């Protein structure tokens, strides 16, 4: 029995996936603390306890995410671009474009038919178009980030935000709240602004079908729908697993490949 794991330490959340023969047996998502090594361990311990396993049972563990170099228990580390590609292609073999929105960055990744990375583009310079944008807006509205998605679905007349900059958009949102616009309309406007910014990045690379979204923001239906509408493209929903786990899933799949190559220590 070969059991492998993937651990993805992001800016806001640490994720772990444990697999046995390309089948997911346990997953965990925990909030990242200031130390990536501790966040990684917390996520991994939670997944291990779910699977009733210990670290000794894991043959190969691949680390990924911005804190990947700091994870003590991994066998090797792989870039999150490759891991998101790997994970998405595993769940949707026809996928060619992946939009991954994390807590503090946004990536658009293109794959060929075999799932190899063709090219990618990243924004980690500007908070707009990243999970951080939604975080800031949710805080202003005094609701949770997940509510931002849910509430927007019943909007009748979404507000328009004049600027993509998080700072200016925040001032705009406050103005609309003070003008007593319905919360649903404000939420929807925020999601559209977010989608507009992401579409700029996506258009810079050019998208090819099929398209899917990964990362925590993929759980916000308001952003996903707005993005599909703005780009005039269908975005395939990932149903088999929480899209936030995609990097960790890809990492686990890389770990699995390593054991197949006979790289595993017996």
């Amino acid at each position: 029995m070969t059991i492998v794991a993937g651990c993805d330490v992001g800016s806001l959340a640490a994720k772990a996936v444990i697999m046995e023969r390309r089948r997911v047996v346990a997953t965990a998502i925990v909030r990242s603390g200031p130390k990536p090594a501790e966040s990684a361990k917390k996520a991994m311990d939670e997944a291990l306890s779910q699977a009733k396993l210990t670290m000794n049972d894991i043959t190969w563990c691949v680390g990924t995410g911005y804190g990947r170099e700091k994870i003590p228990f991994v066998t090797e580390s792989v870039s999150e671009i490759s891991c998101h590609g790997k994970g998405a292609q595993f769940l949707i073999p026809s996928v060619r474009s992946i939009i991954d929105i994390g807590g503090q960055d946004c990536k658009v990744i293109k794959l060929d038919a075999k799932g190899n990375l063709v090219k990618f583009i990243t924004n980690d310079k500007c908070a707009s178009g990243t999970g951080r944008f939604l975080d800031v807006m949710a805080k202003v509205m005094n609701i949770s980030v997940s509510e931002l998605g849910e509430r927007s679905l019943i909007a009748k007349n979404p507000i328009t935000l004049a600027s993509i900059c998080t700072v200016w958009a925040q001032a705009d949102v406050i103005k609309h709240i003070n003008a007593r616009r319905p919360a649903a309309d404000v939420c929807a406007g925020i999601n559209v602004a977010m989608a507009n910014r992401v579409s700029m990045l996506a258009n810079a690379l050019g998208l090819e079908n099929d398209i899917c979204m990964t990362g925590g923001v993929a759980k916000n239906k308001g952003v996903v729908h707005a993005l599909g509408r703005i780009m005039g493209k269908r975005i395939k929903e990932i149903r088999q697993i929480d899209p936030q786990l995609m990097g960790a899933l890809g990492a686990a799949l890389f770990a699995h490949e390593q054991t197949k190559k006979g790289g595993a220590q017996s």
Partner: protein
Amino acid sequence: MITAGCDLGSTTAKAVIIENKSILASAVIPARLDPIVSAEDVMALCLKNAGLSRDRIKAIVGTGYGQQQIPFVSRLESEIVCHARGAFFHHPTARTIIDIGGQDSKVIKLDSNGKVVQYSYNDKCAAGTGRFLEIMADSLNLSLEEIGSVGNTCKERLNISNQCVIFAETEVVSLVNEEKDPGDILNALFRAMANRVCSQARSLTIENDVVMTGGVAKNIGVFNALCQSMGTAIKTITDLDPQINGALGAALLAQEA
């Protein structure tokens, strides 16, 4: 002939009254909620400072972000043209003007006659504008007025790697938690901001003399960081508040019918 300029900015309203080429009075007030009230208030204060009544003013040029709201103007001119005129009035050798306002940053190139030949305008991103400083001053619990001198020098050279206001603010929070000196943090912030403005300036070809105007020119720390970044000496307007440069330019333009 007595004329006036009124510059309705995002955070302050400015007015200047001149007679031919000499300044009679000026005024700066924080922007009110209603831009019309801002315009009326700043003009009333400026007239009071000059000891003049409104009917003595032959022409008034309006400019700035809220220019459309100014009720009493003879005509409007863009902020670019007004800032160019004001800076060229003080420094006829000026060929590049860097103006940083509360919510925007502009780089303007002039020819030897003071005519605008090229400019770059940023109001899309808060980095590199006065808003960046406001937010950082807030997060360090200092006033906008005091941060300039506090951050002008550093004991320990820290670095802020982000130019984005949101991401830089996170860096500030971690530096504060590491108990770093606020002056050192500010100094790093000023360098980050200067780099941002400098890359905007570099999108045009920089020609000397460079003159800095706008409210942020009063921040000595940013001013020095910008000189460093640009690798050149920058002039500022010393005998006048650099924040009223746009209004002065407007008043000068009002002299021309």
